[in-house]
């Protein structure tokens, strides 16, 4: 069955949709668009929609990916137009491509993600101080965060091996954090974890919360930052 890869942005009100909400919304949008979405077999059939990596509720996604299987061939341009017109506010289609159906699943190939976060600083801060704080943070032998196991037990987990890059800068009173983190089924670092650990370690304080954004998703092994096409 023909498989389509969708690149989309999740922003505006849609950034507050949970992963389940998102699946439901895509399914309904595809139905409104009149696209013949394929269904899984079995007792409780569900639409063949596969997302690259769940995005934390509230985080903006600039370039998210999903695969969708249809029961019949429809030109990608037509799928794009129809689906685009049927999406609710905040889910913006960027591009749709027909992809070979033997391509590995998105979830299996996604390996890293690039993030940014911004917030208003509580106190004024020199650029050099911030840069040093970031360097000190990354120089630590391990960066421990508290996680809970499925049974609810707390344990400490070292996220350092999953941090591929991190930097920080300021613009007037706005602090911006950038990071590239391990993402996917073979290990996943949540951006909030990193931010919390950095803020704790540096002693910096912000007013309110960080606005977080996932800027890109990357596959394993590619050095050239190619996206998931």
């Amino acid at each position: 069955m023909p498989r389509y890869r969708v690149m989309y942005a999740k922003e505006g009100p849609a950034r507050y949709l949970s992963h389940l909400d998102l699946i439901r919304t895509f399914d309904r949008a595809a139905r409104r668009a009149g696209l013949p979405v394929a269904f899984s077999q079995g007792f409780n059939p569900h639409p063949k929609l596969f997302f690259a990596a769940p995005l934390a509720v509230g985080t903006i996604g600039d370039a998210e990916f999903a695969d969708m299987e249809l029961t019949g061939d429809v030109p990608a341009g037509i799928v794009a137009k129809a689906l685009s017109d049927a999406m609710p506010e905040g889910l913006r289609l960027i591009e749709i491509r027909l992809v070979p159906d033997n391509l590995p699943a998105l979830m299996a190939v996604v390996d890293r993600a690039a993030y940014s976060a911004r917030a208003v600083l509580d106190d004024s801060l020199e650029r050099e101080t911030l840069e040093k704080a970031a360097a000190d943070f990354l120089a630590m032998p391990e960066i421990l965060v508290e996680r809970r196991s499925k049974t609810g037990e707390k344990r400490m987990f070292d996220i350092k091996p999953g941090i591929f890059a991190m930097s920080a800068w300021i613009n007037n009173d706005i602090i911006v954090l950038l990071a590239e983190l391990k993402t996917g089924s073979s290990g996943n670092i949540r951006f909030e974890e990193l931010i919390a650990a950095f803020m704790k370690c540096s002693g910096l304080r912000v007013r309110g919360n960080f606005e977080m954004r996932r800027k890109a998703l990357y596959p394993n092994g590619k050095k050239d930052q190619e996206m998931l096409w």
Partner: protein
Amino acid sequence: MDLLQQILPLVKKPARYAGGEWNAVHKDWEKTELKTVFAFPDVYEVGMSYLGMQILYNIVNSRPDALMERVFTPWPDMAEKMRENGLSLFALESLRPVKDFDILAFTLQYEMSFSNILYMLDLAGIPLRSEQRKEEYPLVIAGGPCAFNPEPMADFIDIFVIGEGEEVISELLDVVLAGRRKMLAKEEIMYEAAKIAGIYVPALYQVFYREDGAFQEIRPVRAEVPGKVTKRVVKDFDGTPFPVKPVVPATEAVHDRMMIEVLRGCTRGCRFCQAGMIYRPVREKKPETVLRQTAELVKNTGYDEISLTSLSTSDYSPVLEVIRAIVDEHSGRGINVSLPSLRADHFSVELAKEVQRVRRSSLTFAPEAGTQRLRDVINKGITENDLMEAAGAAFREGWHAVKLYFMIGLPTETDEDLEGIVRLAREVLALGRKNGVSRGRLKVTVSVSSFVPKAHTAFQWEPQAPNESLKRKQDDLSSKIRDRGLTLNYHDANLSFVEAAFARGDRRLGTVLVKAFELGCRFDGWSEYFSIKLWLEAFRLAGIDPKWYANRGYNYEDPLPWDHIDSGVSKQYLILEHKRAKEGIVTVDCRTGFCPGCGLCPALEIEPYYAGSEN
């Protein structure tokens, strides 16, 4: 950075407050003369499941001179953050404060949501009492079933709509628009509104009490204000605007599916049921209308399930042909049909079979009482034979879970009736085993609620059974319903007690609501928030005894606090029905062609309409 965006990451289920849903209507604020906001006094997932909101939203937004937005009760975590940050209650479409609108319209679905209305007014920065609200505040209006006894909410609501809102809303908006153009004061606009049929403006009425504290009379205080307000009713139900482009929530609603209303009203005449009285007469939608609206809903929403809604869908004359036609036309696209509730009879199981070809969840039947004697008293026209046939058919057709709804504390109830509940539950369980449902999968759930006497019913004169007696009956049932495969659920008797006080309450209960709000009562329909301790304290502070309202019986000649609201069903008929109940005499459904004489059709100049009856 935007305040709302700062708060939303900190609360549970932020999509509740984000808006942006499919089919949400965003009108130009500056260019639209009259701004209204529909307020549902419960959380988003509950409110978005309410068809009435979608009906009014569609009608108002179809007018070029008006807009309607939506607001729901923020869950306490959100409310706390809003207070901390000085963010006032806002509407989902424009994100503007509710107090910037011209009309704030609440629906009164359930007495236990009254506290949420005060909670929402407060979050909106709007004074609670109507008399405290000056010109700059919105007109606060309310409708829905609880408006049929509006008195407990009379202190807080400027204008009540009695009856079917889609029939009145346009006239009301016209009057408000005209009044504003003439620069009339709010008080004068309310006076003008009071002259519309079906509109009740409590500030224009004075209440009198007897020396012993009993309610005596309610009288208009200005000329041309009617002494009695008669409900409004849609005459052409088939042709009335139906929302075929409803707002589709992105986050899961309680009823997360298309809703097509196939009929309104129910004439079965269960004597405890308020809906069965206030939504008369029965009006059915033509099959072709149902099918046309279904096709539009499918196209406009993208849902994969459609529910044929009404008070009693298996009574819809062409129900079988309509279900088959929907299945034929839409099942290829994976669309399922669902039915909201089923009568305990064989035909209903046939219907369920028709719609549930794939999913085998549980089937629910509502015998309501454990013995034939008591079912005759309440006029629930179901025999034990009907129930057993229905349950047997359900088990044979592959269902393995059955839910049975009962009520305790019904008038004339004895221990034998309670025994009857136990016996029926066991017999249904035995039937399941006999029909080969495996022990591990067989499940019979008995759900027991407590009878609450409601205004405008044959039981409006009846007391609620004392709280202790209800609790004893619940204990008794739970000691007996213990067999493997049987599960017993019951509603909190304390909650039913407070509900009963308000269901037949008068205007003095407004003080109790204010006290309850001040003590922190909200989300009282949710067991995790309901606190009987706080409510009893509120009654005590107001100097009012809740038992005097809940557990009190009235005589036929006693004036009732809702006598000025006319549901169209005559009081003489309700008295007759009450007497027949006491004698255990059943009354036929007017569907059968025998008119039991409830008086509604001549009074409202309307007739029942059955689809296909014109042939």
